[in-house]
């Protein structure tokens, strides 16, 4: 719960801190030149924004101060009030007050207690044109640095001089930015303390400069202080109790209506206990502008290129004395590159921040109770990629809430928990980040989608009938497909999933889904961690070289006169026979209108997978693989969509990077037509190719068959090892608990088998990403290769249909169904410790 609030507040703090920085400097400008209209407008707008945001977050104290300040500024703006230094000071006071409240807010998560009447009454008086007693306003010292920064802000509380206290030396309140002698001395006294850094109280006067830092100012000493603090985390808990007594008694003489407990450091300071340890950890980070990071990244990229060039030169010289140091340089460059890449990494939680709020609004709007569960917010990825997936993710969560989840009543009737759950999770896998968006709603309506596919003319009835359930589901990614019966305010405009898919594929990602009727839908997105540096294959076509991102390339096939594989022609279309499937081919040279190099050159086919589509790209040669730094093409070249960028190779030449996605689109209709029958999925094998199948018996009825390629292993275990309880079965398998399923979800057979001594239970083991499951069968009959043509479609889950295999009618197992059930078993007892449920 605290998560949402904290994040909203911290975002608000960042924004407000930045706004206030500007207001500060603008006000100073404004005072110097009161006729400068633009400056005033700017200030007014900023304060107004702050006010608005405070109101939105229910921060009443802040809002009241900001409102009074805004009113006064409004008078200036309307020209009804002359701009006097006193007036500006007053406005600055209110800005300072806001900052102090913000500081308290950041530390405790709540607005600190306090009364701002003193300030507000004076602001109002000023706005009314009445005489103003500046001294009536309790002045406050402002934390000396941007409120939000990663460096934990700290209260100004010199032990000898409480916050908002009156400077005893001058007998009047200090103005912001003003430095009293006493303060100076106090600072030195503090700094010269025996403990060195320890004596440095948080937010103290900067000992290096001997003055308080002005808001917005960031000094080296500030940073040092932060580091010192981080090294000695005790200081937080040490926060001296003295200020309590210092502040509590209202200041002496000049202050009339002093706030009883102005910015309340005593409240915040002691609270900096346990939980705040986290805050201390953050003191070790600093905010660096994105520009600096981008600049750094560019430099490192250049360095990588230069390194590559050097390595190339060195490779061609045998005697080189440079070889060893160059090797070292090369390693260092690699490490530097990794480090810099890390600075670009951001937790994916940043892209999820607005989702809890979104889900809450949706929940209200749709009248559904929805829980949003997030797991793995800390998983990092390149901020560029992060930006690109933010919108698709939002859209998908919206979809899940709108279409995926049932209404509360319906859920209750179905015996499901009243609250629907949308679960977001993220984890790393290889060079990818995998993001899952799962809901426990009604699942996709397969029958409706089938109808819709036919209705929209995306496929014929015969084709649709031959598709597996999962293949049918995937049609929701097709352009212009929408199943929502009614277009709601939120979704159902039929552009959604198509756009999501396109966006994700554009950054070299993949999207897939699994759905079980009545149990929910899970979308899985896999995207590369970074786009800046990719591994690529350098290929030759015509007389030119091109780079193809390796992520898209599934395999390379050598073709040509002496090769095993031969390119064949159907009319004008080129195809390749690959493991009994026909792969449509695109010739790189002719597609790019390159002049053909010598014909009958050694030719390679790169099998390229882009989302659902798979095709072969015919190139003359595959030359090398190289880590390339992707550089965007100049604007003038953006209309050439087949290239996603350019890079400089080790030899100094520039090569263009092919966009496999756009390439397949360029290749035209041929692919589109073929796509349906050429998807890699199993049901596409309705043709007459032979498939290796495992025949087995399980449950009652016809013998069953499953394509061998889906099975990871066959296991034979003693039945007694299988643990059966509460309608579930599991087996300790390779150190993990693997769920055991049966074809009819009935474990009686297993139970009776257990009573038999040394009964051996055959299992078909299926594995997926990070999980495994076993399907208990009665008997494994045979492994055969045969044509598989599903002749009768199935009417129950888990069976794709009936086909004649080896002369017998067999039920063909729907592997996807069992995968999902296995996955569901795994998700029933997730590692709850690192999950945070938010309403």
């Amino acid at each position, binding site marked *: 719960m605290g998560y949402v609030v904290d994040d909203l507040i911290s975002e608000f703090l960042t924004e407000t801190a930045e706004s206030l920085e500007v207001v500060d400097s603008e006000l100073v400008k404004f005072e110097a030149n009161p006729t400068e209209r633009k400056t005033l407008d700017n200030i007014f707008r900023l304060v107004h924004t702050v006010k608005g945001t405070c109101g939105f977050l229910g921060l009443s104290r802040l809002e009241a101060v900001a409102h009074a300040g805004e009113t006064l500024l409004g008078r200036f703006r309307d020209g009804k009030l002359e701009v006097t230094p006193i007036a500006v000071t007053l406005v600055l006071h209110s800005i300072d007050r806001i900052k102090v409240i913000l500081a308290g807010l950041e530390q405790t998560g709540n607005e600190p207690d306090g009364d701002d009447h003193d300030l507000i009454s004076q602001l109002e008086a000023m706005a009314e044109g009445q005489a103003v007693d500046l001294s009536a306003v309790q002045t406050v010292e402002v934390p000396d640095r941007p409120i939000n920064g990663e460096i934990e802000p700290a209260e100004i509380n010199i032990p000898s001089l409480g916050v908002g206290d009156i400077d005893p030396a001058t007998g009047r309140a200090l103005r912001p930015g003003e430095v009293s002698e006493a303060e100076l001395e106090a600072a030195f006294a503090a700094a010269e303390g025996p403990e060195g850094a320890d004596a440095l109280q948080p937010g103290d006067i900067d000992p290096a400069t001997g003055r308080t830092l002005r808001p917005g100012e960031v000094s080296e000493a500030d940073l040092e202080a932060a580091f010192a603090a981080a090294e000695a985390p005790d200081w937080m808990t040490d926060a001296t109790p003295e200020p309590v007594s210092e502040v509590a008694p209202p200041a002496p003489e000049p202050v009339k209506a002093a706030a009883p407990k102005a910015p309340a450091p005593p409240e915040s300071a002691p609270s900096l206990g346990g939980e705040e340890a986290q805050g201390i950890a953050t003191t070790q980070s600093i905010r660096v502008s994105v520009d600096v990071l981008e600049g750094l990244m560019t430099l490192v990229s250049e360095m990588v290129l230069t390194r590559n060039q050097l390595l190339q030169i060195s490779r061609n010289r045998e005697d080189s004395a440079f070889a060893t140091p160059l090797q070292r340089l090369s390693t260092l460059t690699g490490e530097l590159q990794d480090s810099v890449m890390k600075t670009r990494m951001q937790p994916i939680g940043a892209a999820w921040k607005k989702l809890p709020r979104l889900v809450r609004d949706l929940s209200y709007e749709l009248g559904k109770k929805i829980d949003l569960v997030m797991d793995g917010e800390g998983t990092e990825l390149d901020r560029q990629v992060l930006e690109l997936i933010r919108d698709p993710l939002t859209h998908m969560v919206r979809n899940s809430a709108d279409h995926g989840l049932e209404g509360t009543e319906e859920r209750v009737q179905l015996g499901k928990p009243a609250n629907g759950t949308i679960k977001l999770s993220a984890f790393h896998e290889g060079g990818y980040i995998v993001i899952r968006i799962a809901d426990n709603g009604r699942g996709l309506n397969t029958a409706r989608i089938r109808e819709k596919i036919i209705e929209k003319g995306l496929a014929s009835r015969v084709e649709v009938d031959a598709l597996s359930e999962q293949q049918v589901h995937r049609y929701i990614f097709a352009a212009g497909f929408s199943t929502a019966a009614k277009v709601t305010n939120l979704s159902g405009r039929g552009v959604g999933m198509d756009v999501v898919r396109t966006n994700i594929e554009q950054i070299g990602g993949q999207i897939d889904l699994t759905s079980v009727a009545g149990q929910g839908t899970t979308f899985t997105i896999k995207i590369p961690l970074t786009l800046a540096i990719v591994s690529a294959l350098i290929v030759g076509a015509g007389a030119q070289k091109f780079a193809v991102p390796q992520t898209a390339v599934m395999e390379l096939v050598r073709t040509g006169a002496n090769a095993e594989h031969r390119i064949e022609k159907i009319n004008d279309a080129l195809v390749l026979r690959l493991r009994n499937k026909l792969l449509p081919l695109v010739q790189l040279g002719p597609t790019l*209108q390159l002049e053909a190099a010598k014909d009958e050159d050694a030719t390679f086919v790169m099998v390229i997978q882009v989302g659902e589509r798979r095709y072969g790209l015919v190139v003359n040669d595959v030359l090398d693989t190289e880590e390339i730094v992707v*550089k965007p093409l100049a604007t003038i070249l953006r*209309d050439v969509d087949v290239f996603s960028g350019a890079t*400089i190779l080790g030899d100094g*030449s*520039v090569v*263009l990077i092919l966009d496999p996605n756009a390439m397949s689109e360029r290749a035209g209709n041929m692919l589109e037509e073929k796509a349906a029958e050429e998807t890699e999925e199993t049901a596409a094998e309705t043709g007459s190719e032979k498939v290796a199948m495992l025949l087995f018996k399980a449950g009652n009825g016809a013998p069953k068959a499953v394509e061998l390629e889906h099975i990871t292993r066959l296991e034979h275990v003693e039945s007694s090892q299988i643990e059966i309880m509460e309608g579930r079965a599991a087996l300790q398998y390779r150190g993990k608990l693997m769920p055991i399923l049966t074809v009819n979800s009935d474990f009686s057979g297993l139970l009776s088998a257990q009573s038999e001594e040394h009964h051996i239970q055959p299992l078909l083991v299926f594995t997926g990403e990070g999980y495994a499951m076993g399907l208990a069968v009665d008997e494994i009959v045979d492994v055969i290769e045969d044509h598989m043509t599903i002749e009768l479609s199935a009417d129950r889950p888990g069976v794709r249909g009936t086909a004649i295999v080896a002369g017998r009618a067999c039920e063909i197992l729907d592997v996807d169904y069992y995968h999902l059930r296995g996955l569901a078993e795994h998700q029933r007892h997730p590692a709850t410790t690192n999950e945070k449920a938010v309403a």
Partner: protein
Amino acid sequence: MSLRDYVTLRVGGQLFGVDAARVHDVFHPRGLTPVPLSRSEIAGVLNLRGRIVTAVCARRRLGLPPREEGAPEPLAIGLEVHGDSYGLVIDSVDEVLKLDDEKFHAPPGNLPPRWAEIIVGVYQLEKELLIVLDPHTLLDAAHLKAA
């Protein structure tokens, strides 16, 4: 009277000028990698000291005939537009001239449209006219499409 520096250059015999402040460098466009399927004005991309520079042929852009056989090696001036590095491929570079703003004239009204939009104005030099080009519209994708 205020003076302004112009890099003067020749394309197809005509004298052109580009605000010297806009010209980053002058180089030989070598090692060009052609960009398939791109507009005819694009000569290719090249590596200029680690930067990828897009070379645009001025003759093509201005609708002039291609260079004759045996002409001396062309030059390119480095320009930056919208943060992208471009090389405008020209025939030759002359001198840098300091020209008085007072002698600057708006372009005449009878120019062909292809020229009109990329020309800022004209200086009347003693011997000939110096046509001042606007690198921005010259290399801007939107203008290019319209051309």
